[in-house]
């Protein structure tokens, strides 16, 4: 199993995801929604690959800070960019994008927030990396790559000089 990614690897993963999305959502006029911040970066890359006609509207962004299930344990995050869904989600097909799917808690929170905006016809989940460690019954529909990592290994998408995937091990 690969445990390091070059930028070319990431480009390939994004190309693969775009192909899968084209197959799955063609003619459905989907709306694109990215989760802050990694999901937004991935969503932008996908939008570039699929072209401006594929999605029916601008990129929506979700910040799930107010929907987290650990507020009473870890308190407020210092800076929260507000969610911005510049369209009505009612009866629409949504493509929800995140960088890494691990526990599934972020996606749970994102789904809750989406349903506070309205009732979409469908939500398709796309993640660049699907890794081990699920705590909720949530699976992605579109995956860049599945990675099996130990509990003490962390994978993170950064965007300082292009997209990069960093894998770190913490002392357990």
């Amino acid at each position, binding site marked *: 199993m690969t445990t390091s990614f070059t930028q070319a690897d990431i480009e390939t993963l994004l190309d693969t995801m775009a192909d899968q999305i084209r197959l799955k959502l063609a003619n459905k006029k989907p709306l694109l929604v990215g989760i802050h911040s990694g999901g937004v970066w991935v969503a932008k890359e996908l939008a570039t690959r699929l072209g401006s006609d594929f999605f029916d509207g601008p990129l929506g962004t979700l910040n799930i800070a107010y929907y987290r299930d650990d507020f009473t344990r870890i*308190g407020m995050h210092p800076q929260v960019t507000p969610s911005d869904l510049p369209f009505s989600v009612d009866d629409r097909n949504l493509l929800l994008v995140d960088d890494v799917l691990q526990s599934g808690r972020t996606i749970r929170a994102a789904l809750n927030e989406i349903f506070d905006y309205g009732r979409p016809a469908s939500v398709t989940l796309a993640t660049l990396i699907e890794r081990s460690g699920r705590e909720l019954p949530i699976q992605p529909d579109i995956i860049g790559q599945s990675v099996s990592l130990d509990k003490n290994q962390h994978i993170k998408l950064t965007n300082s000089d292009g997209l990069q995937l960093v894998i770190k091990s913490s002392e357990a």
Partner: protein
Amino acid sequence: MTNNQLTAKGQLRHFLTIEGLKKPLLTEIMDRAEQFSGISTRHVKKVPLLRGKTIVNLFFENSTRTRTTFELAAKRLSADVMNLNINTSATSKGESLLDTLHNLESMHTDMFVVRHNQSGAAEFIAQHVAPHVSVINAGDGCHAHPTQAMLDMFTIRRHKGHFPNLRVAIIGDILHSRVARSQIQALSILGVGEIRVIGPKTLLPSDCETLGLHVYHDLESGLKDVDVVITLRLQLERMQGALLPSSREYFDCFGLTEEKLSFAKPDAIVMHPGPINRGVEIASAVADGPQSVILEQVTHGIAVRMAVMSMALGAQSELNEI
């Protein structure tokens, strides 16, 4: 005053007064309010941030705007809210304030929003609550009304951007106004260039100059070139003795009319904490005019109170660690 409203890490635990707070904290309250203001225009006007928290509105003095906006703010954060009307509660049967409080604490409440006609009431309550309970001051006597001051700062920032270049004039009954006191503190902390107070001598505190305020006794010179005009309600219920000949005469001298407002900058905004007394401190034409942001202030009150409540209850996580 000891700053017991902050945790060891400088987070807001209670919100009792603006006095002693630092600029970054006031800015954080406004930034958070900005983030929360979008929620009120959504399909579902709620986020689950404070789900499962119980907030008690403890109002020992009448209020419509403040109580309802606190209630809406709490509900939009998904907290459970109880409104206690003290006039019909156990305190009128002779129960002491502290006994009422301890009873409410026994019901596992998380926050008290307190309004009281005695200065220092919220501070007193904050000193006596259990460690897991936060207290928000919704106005105490002539002392402080910090959430009103913050919603006013938020309104000014939305219209005028930066504070340092601004000239702000507060007109009227400064002496009895907890709103003015909190506003002046907030404006100073945020570094407003010039703060003016305009009113008859009997309604201005004697120590205005030492606070760095510019004092005027007539609207013509006081309003010249100001960016923000704040009018205050005449608090007849707090006045003891003959401070004013009549409200008619007050309007002739200090009532904000279109003519008087024309001395301010053409793009000056007009604010009022409410309730307004038309024809006493402000003319209807001004209150309903294009420069008035009075109803916007009410709307902003919800987002600002959401910000303060979530910050105070969020800081509790730090206390839980200990």
